[in-house]
């Protein structure tokens, strides 16, 4: 049996669920699912411009594992680009480093610091809050 994967830490899930190509009559039937850890790898490396070593420390995995995740993410994105397929963010073995909450009334996402009650920082109500 293969060794189980270690949990990868991620900061925040993307607030949208994927991409689809435009200008094609019929979207390619096969969808590509980009794992959350792969999304995070691309974000850390190419958006926040961290090195693989720094990024791997943030995700709590080893540097070679990070490079593998990143490589796989780039291949998936390239495949989707060339073949005009839909990219969907789903799956992956992830745990959230920072817990984010959402208030549907104020339409905001926020964190709750230690020792504070679970309420929306703007409207101070508790009923509209959902964890994400």
């Amino acid at each position: 049996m293969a060794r189980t994967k270690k949990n990868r830490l991620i900061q925040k899930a993307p607030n949208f669920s994927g991409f689809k190509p435009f200008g094609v009559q019929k979207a390619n039937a096969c969808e590509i699912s980009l794992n959350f850890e792969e999304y995070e790898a691309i974000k850390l490396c190419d958006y926040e411009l961290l090195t693989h070593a720094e990024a791997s420390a943030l995700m709590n995995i080893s540097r070679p594992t990070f490079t593998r995740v990143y490589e796989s993410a780039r291949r998936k994105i390239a495949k989707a680009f060339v073949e005009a397929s839909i990219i969907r963010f789903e799956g992956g073995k992830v745990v959230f480093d920072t817990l984010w909450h959402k208030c549907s009334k104020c339409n905001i996402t926020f964190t709750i610091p230690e020792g504070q009650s679970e309420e929306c920082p703007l409207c101070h109500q508790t009923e509209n809050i959902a964890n994400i």
Partner: protein
Amino acid sequence: MIIAIALNENHSKALVDEHFGRCVWYCIYDSESRKSKYIENTNRYAEEGAGCSSAEMLLQYGIQMAIAGRFGVKVVEFFRKNNIQMVIPETQQTLIEIINQIK
């Protein structure tokens, strides 16, 4: 409570900036005295670590909450360590709209 809001301009109708570290102005708003002041983000052209140096600067004003469209990973770590609440509006909002929502 003292709140820092990332803005792209320094007036009350300015939009909340998309990115915490690279915004042009910060508004420091005190919800008790209802006073606000604007400070320029001098770190915005820094090669890297713009968010962290701004966060350190804002900490000197004693902020307890920060509002911006997005926070970088280093800033999230930094704010979490210092127990500062982060708020991300999902829609484009102006400073005055945010302030009116704070009770």
